[in-house]
């Protein structure tokens, strides 16, 4: 029932792209529009992709509903099912459906999808000749499979093969007729296609390649009874033959569904032509989905369509900031037991080289197509574990020279901890634990994806908690997602990452504006970028607090309420609500007196656990919050910042002072570094280590900055990580003197502080910007390096020790509970 004051939005097409746009819109502007939806199908919005598993008998129609009719009601959307819009009257701004239903619009959204292409051969209209597009087609196939024996699928592409596989599983004899010399020629090269054909033949499918349909033959019943092939393309046996078939499925491609738009005079060219904001030539009319042609491309996979939906919603919500600039696509064949992934271009790319791993016996084939040190295409068969990694590198156009050696062996989970070293989801049983932090099994994840219609890693994290904690199993969860929803899954675009759900602006855009616009407080920053939620959320506030602090070291007023509790209390919260205290012990070198004091404090406050940490210092665990200031006072040692996104430890070995192998005084170097970097906040924790010789007892090669003494000086390594995912650090430079070690290391760390995203460890940042870039800034450009080093020294100039400040009364309220006493009773 149209409320007059609201603007009216009419959506034509009740499918995946159209309704996704509405979902995004409702998130951004729940009450902006009075919405009406027309759908030619008699169903709510369902997950078309999963029609394949439905045909295969692995799922039911009920399972694949994304938005049932209640959803429309709950969101006050007027839904016209079973009504096909026949006309758009752009002058009167109304649409008219086949049954005469009319709806006026202020904004119109076209999401009419596409139509299957039917070969113009005699008999194409016979009963039993169908396409594969919607629930109706699927039901008809299931029905036919229960009554007839022979099926022919015309077209050996993604769709055709999934149809053939489904019909086979339903007990029909299935022959796939394909015009091209090998299957899925648009996604696969010949070798991979060969492997695929073999395993499909093993499932009982028959194939006729390089064959063209001449005619579909009519039986007595009036239903199709056979398909007649054209004679000799090449003289392979069986040419010109006739194959019996009571069901013919045409899966030879799709055509954007533009009749309606064209009739309305909208500019179309193999799709309704839109600009980067998904607007057609009529500014009141937007279009998304397969019916669209954007920069000359009409997409046929949902991932890019969902990006279009997000952008379109953003503009319908009148925020007007995001753009769709096109996106690379990847596909995954959804045939159970077959693991096939392909992305980008892989044949006939000018001046491209290939890395190929081929093990036909083992049923594994991997091919990467590389041009100018960038991945432009990949085909994986048998083992698709690294599909999303390759795809990410491809889409972000990352320079892979540094990775080249490791590319084929795969990133997936080299050195990952937490899931029994598993790295191939396909081979995992349903009851096997994927996420070690939250104890989530594979089966649970698959179920959540199907039942809740999840498409993104974040959705899966929200619903199952899998990979939501330490993240080490992310790769596995991505694989499970990909093989469940097919090409519909696309790893998040890391090159453009919004700060959090409260804004669409990226970390980089926000850091830039903070400096250029001289934004000096969190409210100012949120105001400037029109934050969506009042006082943001637990993700963006700590990030903004850090960005401001880093941009204005001396005049930014730190906001404790925007810090995670550990940084607010300057101690690590434990699961029972008590805290741990880790005093700084520079370079891990202590004294008897210091140890005595620690011992006395531990006794005085009955500290339950005293532990030597992995960072060469001592952890007092289980301290009551209200005791913290007293404990710090008695310890009379600086804070170890073991709780902060900050400098943590500088691990050292004994070095030349004692060690018979030592060639450099690593201990002294380490202490000097730890003193220089003391009290430094950072995007994430920063850990260093200094070893006195290449035996590297301080494990310097898995640290953010690792220094290894050699006879002629020091080697500096960066961007290592020993945690969730072990990463060996990369060589930055070799220097002679301790002063140089200080300058280069500090400059590297400051560059990281200034340019990394909040919660990036150095490794994540360097993997994104590339080691070449880091070397350019820190090694090649001496003047630049010194300037950066100076900025760090200046930033740390007047940082005070937080424990001492609190010992002397700062933030007293934070630590003092209010005791309930009967004297503050008042009767009302």
């Amino acid at each position, binding site marked *: 029932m149209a409320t007059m004051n609201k603007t009216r939005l009419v959506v034509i097409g009740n499918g995946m792209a159209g309704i996704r746009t509405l979902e995004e819109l409702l998130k951004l502007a729940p009450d902006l529009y009075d919405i009406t939806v027309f759908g030619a199908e008699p169903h709510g919005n369902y997950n078309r992709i999963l029609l394949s598993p439905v045909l295969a008998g692995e799922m039911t129609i009920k399972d694949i509903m994304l938005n049932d009719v209640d959803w429309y009601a709950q969101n006050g959307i007027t839904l016209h099912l079973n009504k096909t819009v026949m006309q758009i009257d752009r002058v009167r701004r109304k649409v008219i459906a086949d049954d005469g239903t009319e709806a006026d619009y202020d904004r119109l959204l076209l999401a009419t999808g596409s139509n299957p292409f039917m070969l113009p051969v005699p008999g194409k209209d016979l009963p039993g000749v169908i396409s594969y597009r919607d629930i109706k087609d699927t039901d008809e196939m299931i029905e036919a499979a229960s009554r007839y024996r022979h099926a022919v699928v015309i077209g050996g592409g993604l769709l055709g093969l999934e149809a053939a596989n489904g019909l086979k599983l339903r007990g029909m004899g299935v022959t796939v007729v394909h015009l091209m010399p090998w299957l899925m020629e648009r996604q696969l090269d010949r070798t991979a296609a060969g492997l695929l054909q073999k395993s499909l033949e093993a499932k009982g499918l028959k194939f006729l390649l390089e064959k063209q349909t001449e005619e579909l033959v009519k039986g007595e019943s009036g239903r199709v009874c056979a398909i007649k092939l054209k004679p000799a393309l090449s003289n392979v046996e069986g040419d010109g033959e006739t194959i019996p078939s009571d069901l013919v499925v045409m899966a030879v491609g799709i055509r954007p569904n533009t009749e309606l738009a064209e009739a309305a005079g909208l500019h179309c060219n193999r799709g309704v032509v839109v600009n980067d904001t998904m607007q057609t030539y009529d500014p009141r009319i937007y279009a998304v989905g397969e019916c669209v042609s954007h920069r000359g491309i009409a997409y046929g996979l949902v991932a890019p369509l969902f990006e279009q939906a997000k952008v379109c919603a953003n503009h319908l919500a009148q925020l007007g900031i995001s753009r769709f600039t096109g996106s690379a696509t990847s596909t995954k064949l959804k045939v159970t037991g077959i693991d096939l992934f392909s992305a980008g271009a892989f044949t006939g790319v000018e001046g491209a080289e290939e890395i190929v791993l081929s093990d036909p016996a083992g049923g594994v084939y991997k091919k990467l197509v590389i041009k100018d040190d960038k991945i432009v295409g990949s085909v994986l068969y048998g083992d698709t574990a690294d599909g999303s990694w390759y795809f990410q590198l491809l889409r972000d156009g990352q320079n892979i020279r540094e990775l080249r050696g490791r590319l084929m062996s795969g990133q997936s989970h080299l050195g990952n901890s937490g899931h029994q070293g598993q790295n191939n989801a396909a081979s995992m049983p349903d009851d096997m634990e994927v996420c070690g932090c939250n104890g989530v099994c594979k089966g649970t994840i698959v179920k959540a994806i199907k039942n809740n219609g999840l498409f993104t890693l974040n959705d899966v994290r*929200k*619903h199952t908690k899998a990979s939501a*904690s330490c993240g080490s199993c992310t790769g596995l969860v991505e694989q499970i997602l990909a093989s469940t929803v097919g090409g519909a899954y696309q790893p998040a675009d890391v090159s453009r990452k919004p700060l959090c759900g409260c804004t669409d602006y990226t970390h980089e855009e926000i850091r830039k504006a903070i400096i250029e616009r001289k934004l000096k407080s969190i409210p100012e920053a949120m105001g400037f970028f029109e934050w969506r*939620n*009042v*006082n*943001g*959320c*637990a993700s963006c*506030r*700590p990030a903004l607090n850090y960005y401001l602090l880093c941009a204005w070291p001396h005049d930014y007023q730190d906001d*404790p*309420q*925007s810090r*995670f*509790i*550990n940084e*607010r*209390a300057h101690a690590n*919260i434990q*699961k029972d*609500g008590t805290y741990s205290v880790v005093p700084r012990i520079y370079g891990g070198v202590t004294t008897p007196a210091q140890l005595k004091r620690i011992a006395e404090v531990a006794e005085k406050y009955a500290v339950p656990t005293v532990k030597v940490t992995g960072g060469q210092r001592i952890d007092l665990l289980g301290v009551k919050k209200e005791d913290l200031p007293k404990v710090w006072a008695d310890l009379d040692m600086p804070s170890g910042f073991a709780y902060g996104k900050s400098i943590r430890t500088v691990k050292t070995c004994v070095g030349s002072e004692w060690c018979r192998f030592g060639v450099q005084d690593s201990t002294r170097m380490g202490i000097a570094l730890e003193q220089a970097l003391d009290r430094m906040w950072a995007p994430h924790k920063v850990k260093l280590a200094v070893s006195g010789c290449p035996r590297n007892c301080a494990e310097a090669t898995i640290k953010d900055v690792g220094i290894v003494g050699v006879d002629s000086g020091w080697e500096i390594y960066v961007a290592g990580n020993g945690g969730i995912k072990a990463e060996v650090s990369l060589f930055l430079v070799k220097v002679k003197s301790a002063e140089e070690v200080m300058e280069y290391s500090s400059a590297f760390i400051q560059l990281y502080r200034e340019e990394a995203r909040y919660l990036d460890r150095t490794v994540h940042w360097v993997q994104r910007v590339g080691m070449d870039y880091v070397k350019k800034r820190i090694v090649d450009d001496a003047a630049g390096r010194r300037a950066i080093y100076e900025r760090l020294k200046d930033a740390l100039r007047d940082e005070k020790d937080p424990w001492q400040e609190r010992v002397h009364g700062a933030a007293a*309220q934070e630590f003092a*509970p*209010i*005791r*309930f006493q009967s004297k*503050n*009773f*008042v*009767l*009302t």
Partner: protein
Amino acid sequence: MSEWIRVCPLEEIPRLGSRVVQTEKCDVAVFRNGSDEVFALKDKCPHKGGPLSQGIVFDRRVTCPLHGWTVQLDSGEAVAPDCGCTHRYRARVDKGEVYLNLF
């Protein structure tokens, strides 16, 4: 008849923060949000009993410090898809003083 406890002056609770009130029953977290509304919840997260008082407060919500559940301050309900609920007490501000009702 309901008994109200005077907790403390409003300004002794940081904006977008909280104070813990220790009662003989249990610890109660008293929150103050961005628009100076006050709320009181049992200081135990519905997930695994984490101290909500130590979380980050925004809008009418707090995010638990231990595993990041978000809890609605005005109802004690966990925000979907998580589900669970912690006890909510009545709290109000009167002439700059915060009062809490434990019954």
